[in-house]
């Protein structure tokens, strides 16, 4: 097993695309090291990307944000402008594990681990975020919902890595929020997660909405029907009830040690509605 800590993206890509064997990117490592410890993966090459400066920065350009792939969740929480613009995305990232985990875990890592229950991904999907992917064939940008393809599987090809997460410019009178169900008050993997982002016009009619659910399918899913329940209407209790029903209807969960099918279907609707209410409050606020 080899350990490399390149200082440029191109060097990292070259290493990842190099000779045969299992190569893994190490950013926060809070998933990778657990998988190594429990023999679920035995990499031949570990590429630590935390010494690549461009991956450690958060930059904002006329309202849009670029978050380097090695930026830890704690740093997101300390970035005032990002927290003000995308409270839903930041609170989702900050729900991943304890403070110890927050100091290490990254959005890109959470995305590429491709767990259907990933906390930050529903909020990123709702926000319409995209991922900048660097690889041997150059760079490409894809919507985040297209990165994970199934539990533990991504659409990244050999030698590719996520370089940054992009968050679009937030339209006026818009807000986002993320909620999850966990048995305790901390430290659990989401049994259900719901991210909502929406925008209103001057009269308070919803002009745009995206609703994403976690842990209710083989990957995070976008639920257009739930968004339709809001778009074109003033968001009242009726609309929110229809959103909840649409969210539940879209679920195709499994029974597992964390929750039952019925529970996930029902609570997905409850959390989608509550997240929409918070997003609505935030949208009316700014």
């Amino acid at each position: 097993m080899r350990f490399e800590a390149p200082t440029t993206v191109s060097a990292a890509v070259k290493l990842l695309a190099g000779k045969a064997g299992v190569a893994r990117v190490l950013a926060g490592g809070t998933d990778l090291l657990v998988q190594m410890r429990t023999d679920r993966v035995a990499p031949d090459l570990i590429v630590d990307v935390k010494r690549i400066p461009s991956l450690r920065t958060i930059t904002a350009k006329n309202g849009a944000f670029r978050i380097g792939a090695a930026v830890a969740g704690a740093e997101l929480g300390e970035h005032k402008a990002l927290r003000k613009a995308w409270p839903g995305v930041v609170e989702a990232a900050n729900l991943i594990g304890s403070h110890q985990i927050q100091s290490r875990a990254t959005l890109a890592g959470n995305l590429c681990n491709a767990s259907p229950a990933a906390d930050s991904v529903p909020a990123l999907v709702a926000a319409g975020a995209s991922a900048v992917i660097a690889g041997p064939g150059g760079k490409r940008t894809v919507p985040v919902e297209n990165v994970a393809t199934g539990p533990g599987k991504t659409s990244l090809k050999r030698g590719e890595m996520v370089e940054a997460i992009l968050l679009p410019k937030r339209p006026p009178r818009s807000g986002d929020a993320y909620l999850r169900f966990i048995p305790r008050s901390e430290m659990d993997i989401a049994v259900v997660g719901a991210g909502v982002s929406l925008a209103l016009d001057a009269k308070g009619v919803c002009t745009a909405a995206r609703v994403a659910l976690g842990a209710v399918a083989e990957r995070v899913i976008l639920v257009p029907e739930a968004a339709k329940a809001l778009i074109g209407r003033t968001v009242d209790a009726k609309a929110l009830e229809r959103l909840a029903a649409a969210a539940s209807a879209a679920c195709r969960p499994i029974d597992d040690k964390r929750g039952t099918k019925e529970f996930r279907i029902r609570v997905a609707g409850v959390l989608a509605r509550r997240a929409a209410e918070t997003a609505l409050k935030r949208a009316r606020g700014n």
Partner: protein
Amino acid sequence: MPLDANLDPRTHVFKVVGTRPLRPDGVDKVTGRAKFGADANAPGMLVGKILRSPHPHARIRAIHTAKAAKLPGVKAIVTREDFPNSVDASLRDVHYNVMAREKALYDGHAVAAVAATSAAIARKALKLIEVDYEILPHVTDVDEAMKPGAPILHSDMITEGVEPAPTKPSNIAGRHEFGHGDPEEGFKQADHVIERVFKTEATHQGYIEPHACLASVGSDGTGELWVCTQGHFMVRDTCAALLGMDVSRLRVTASEIGGGFGGKTTVFIEPVALALSRKAGRPVKLVMSREEVFRASGPTSSTSMTVKIGVTKGGRITGAFAELRFQGGAFTGSPVVLGAMSAFACYDLEHVKVVGYDVVTNRPKQAAYRAPGAPMVAFAVESVLDELANKIRMDPIELRLKNAAKEGTRSSYGPKYNRIGLIDCLEAARKHPHYKAPLGPNQGRGVSAGFWFNFGGQTCVSLNVNIDGTVALVVGTPDIGGSRASMCLMAAEELGIPYDKVRAIVADTGSLGYNDISEGSRVTFSTGLATISAARDAVAKLCARAAKIWGIPADAVTWENGHAKPSGPNAGNFEPLSLEDLAKKAAKTGGPIAGHYEVNADGAGVSFAVHLADAELDRETGRVQIKRYTVVQDAGKAIHPSYVEGQFQGGAAQGIGWAINEEYIYGKDGRLQNPGFLDYRVPVASDLPMIDTVIVEVPNPGHPYGVRGVGETSIVPPLAAIANAVSAAAGVRMTQLPMSAPRVLKTMDEAKRGSRRR
């Protein structure tokens, strides 16, 4: 050693007992210097790893270790062949559990072990060991295991306690019955009778320190073992028997212990480490991973219970019956007997009967978990009592007061009680501000009473006077809750010297007489009374020494606040001699001065408690949160109040976890699905409120200061207190633990469809 006639702990003014000094072993623990099980190393040390069965039930036809043995760096491999074919009957199950014999009986059962020069090589070697398994059908649920036709674990298991004895083997190891009178007769006199079935899942003690030890056996058969354990003398005797060693050949040192709660009162990896070390001729360090702790240490039983209680409109319990079905893993010995005995122990009953079944399943061999057996049964009994109180519209504490056991009551497990404090606890709970505080929306309040026996046991203490008049106190009971501080307090009290002039250490098995395990809430009681006796032994010698110096008869000298004094004017007016004075002269007046006491202590007093819990329910998601919690418990006499409170709070927190989130989840494949702290959810800091405590002190006649053990009772009431609170908030009776959100939602839905009452 009974309560001193002239000392009533309620009025006696203690000099240091009852104060809150800093513990003597504290600085090492806050600076990282304290050495726990995995913190020791030795020159030439090898790393041990255990190969565990992936199958819940399989015959082991053969174990091929040749390939593994050839791997460079592998120095020893042990299997069942390296352990004696037969051992004393009392150790048969431990012997089988430590290293699988004919069959692997649960997912995680040890099958072989390797010692190598590095962890990586040891892990690789395990993968090279080939085990020829014949997979057998398995059973993990207690009710399924009792059914005829269930896969049989032990072909020689004939149910005990059944007359005439059955002829066919079964998974029911024993039937146990307790009680007096005739409940059926009692139910006839009742206005209301409620019968319900309750289920609880298996839970783990959850100590943060995994089992760890460092074994070193020389070619002359002399061995050293460093281990985190609640009982290093038990470890010595058990390991010596399992390895065919003389007891004198093995010295065991108890490291600091990172939590036990009953789970470290037996052996798991220690005999394996010793066997590896003996075979390799080098020290071997063996540390369990967290996954191994969950799969292969000693969780407590999962249970299925039926409880039936009848009361009059006026709140008098006329009849009480319980049938308890406990599975204790792959071997006999689930805590169903103690559960059966404690079921109705809080109440003064004319007609009571409890039948308990001890059942085996393909799960790890259970070990004690803090008042073993009692929390689950209290959950069932105190839930039915709560439902009856609602039915007759009586305050739940009032209903318990009307039936509370007191001095002279014949307990449901047989003997009559002497002086006990349940009524004092019930009244203190009723007067507590918590009981009258208003409840918010979707909130419910639950009450529950609880009890534990507490025990004495074999105990030895030595107390050595140093030249500067300070004292070296030597005890043999590992300190799992701050007991060294309590021992120093009791020694200082008896000797009349400041607390910080005494230092207590836990000696290894070569330095002190045999001590039973630190369990059964026995340490402050037994080691306490032994410390007091050892101190009094030393005082007698100090007085004799002063008498010799003064040339007067020994009985003419008394001991007062740290000084030997002539007992009266006619004994002579000599200047009093302090402990330090006598210590300085000791060498020249006869030699070192020390006090000793060896005993099998009895007279332990039971400890009762009443808990109050407020729970808030999110009706849309079924999530339960504890908003307020109060513990009221009888300690007899609190030696160090901070650590008594600590036992109250720790027991409550474990109970809260047990009630809401903790459970062993087995798949259909018989494998443990959540062997880790991610999915075996113990409470975290943000789950809990502050836990308020009230220490009631009704002295125990069996101890010089009135001490009662407090360590275990505190986990008995929480399961029921929280279930009663959640049932009140949800408007439906919760009969299964843990009360996870999916289960709460499902139960509320069923209630809406009219199939459940509160």
